């Protein structure tokens, strides 16, 4: 008998933390796909190490989100229930993370965009009014900083490498850039988190993010596509066609063998 899905508390503070935890989790799941497939052994190790850090961050944040459900009058959940027993609409990760891993340039560029975003977000969450979140952030910011440096180094190398590598990087920018405005779209979840001091409105991170990413792309010699009306909406639970397949792969064991452990 497959495991039934859980109902997640519709609380903006819980949703704010799920956005953070789910973005870490799905990005980790995509990076883990490179295990055994990266262009060189060192990069295989690097991508999976980054994925491990992200899984650790996701575990901590999802655990906190699950306890918060209980504190806010809902049913508390643990990290495993949240990761393995939610349906697609209850995952609140950025659409950017769920897009297929693509070639190495897509992976590198997505890493740079997200690690920069996370560095800025964790820096702000270090002063969260929730001491657990502040503690997680103080640790995670160091990891995000290291991820960012590594990814930025690769963006420059691909940009300054061969015609082929620069074309691949340009194609990655063209493909991924339209999904980046979602990072900074404002809504009432952000408003609630900002007013209670749980965390910043993500829109407040945009200027800092642009100040780091745009010079990086300029230095790498690639152009950003013009703005479009398109908006992705993963952090509101409305995902791309790719999301269901990730969940099928990630959740199948716990769905088929509820409560199974290693």
């Amino acid at each position, binding site marked *: 008998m497959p495991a039934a899905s859980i109902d997640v508390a519709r609380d903006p503070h819980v949703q704010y933390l799920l956005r953070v935890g789910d973005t870490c989790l799905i990005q980790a799941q995509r990076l883990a796909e490179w295990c055994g497939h990266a262009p060189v052994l*060192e990069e295989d*190790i*690097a991508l999976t*190490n*980054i*994925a*491990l*850090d*992200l*899984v*650790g*961050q996701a*575990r*901590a944040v999802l655990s906190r989100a699950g306890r918060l459900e209980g504190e806010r009058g809902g049913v508390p959940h643990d990290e495993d229930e949240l990761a393995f027993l939610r349906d697609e609409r209850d995952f609140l990760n950025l659409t950017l993370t769920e897009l297929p891993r693509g070639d190495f340039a897509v992976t590198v560029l997505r890493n740079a965009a997200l690690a*920069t975003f996370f560095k800025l977000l964790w820096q702000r969450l270090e002063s969260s009014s929730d*001491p*657990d979140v*502040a*503690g*997680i952030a*103080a*640790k*995670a910011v*160091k*990891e995000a*900083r*290291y991820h*960012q*440096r*590594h990814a*930025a*180094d690769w963006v*420059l*190398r691909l940009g*300054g490498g061969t015609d082929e590598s620069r074309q691949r990087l340009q194609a990655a920018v063209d493909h991924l850039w339209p999904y980046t405005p979602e990072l900074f779209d404002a809504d009432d979840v952000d408003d609630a988190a900002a007013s209670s001091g749980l965390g910043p409105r993500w829109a407040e991170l945009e200027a800092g993010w642009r100040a*780091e990413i745009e*010079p*990086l792309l300029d*230095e790498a010699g690639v152009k950003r596509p013009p703005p479009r009306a398109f908006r992705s909406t993963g952090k509101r639970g409305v995902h791309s066609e790719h999301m269901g397949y990730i969940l099928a792969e990630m959740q199948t064991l716990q769905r088929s063998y509820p409560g199974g452990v290693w």
Partner: protein
Amino acid sequence: MSDAAVREAGSGTSDATRVERAWSVLQGVLDPEVPVLSVCDLGIVRDVQPAAGGGLAVVVTPTYSGCPATEVIAASARAALEAAGLGPVAIETRFAPAWTTDWMSADAREKLRAYGIAPPGRAARERSPEGGAAVPLRFVPRRVSLPEPALACPRCASADTERLSAFGSTACKSLWRCRACGEPFEHFKPI
């Protein structure tokens, strides 16, 4: 430890003595990935307190968020303390303050070096690419890259070394090579 000694350790001793004994037992619990350093040398065990009912409350902090050794370390610490008659042991994981390699003692650094792993510099001051401190992202082509901080080879002490990979066999290490003696070695990253 004999059964008699276990019984003696577990009964009738003062809280202070039990906590002192616990620290000395934990000095013998080694990190599974770096088996020359104890969980105390690494600063993973943050606090030991007597618990109501005769056991111990042990506070640990993870090194990296995703370090797979964290659970093994907690289980080994619990097993060692319980084997020494100091249980039951409740382990609490605490994130704040965030773990830093700056907590590693000079003695621990020397043990690392002798084991063949270049010890971490000060996280607060060391420069990129290895430093854990906040430094602005630099956009400079690799060929004109700023000189990296010299890292001494743990085998021959030469400073003529180069980094091969930012990530090593575990989350806490990077991979380097010594140009003088030709040997690869690992570096415990400052964070």
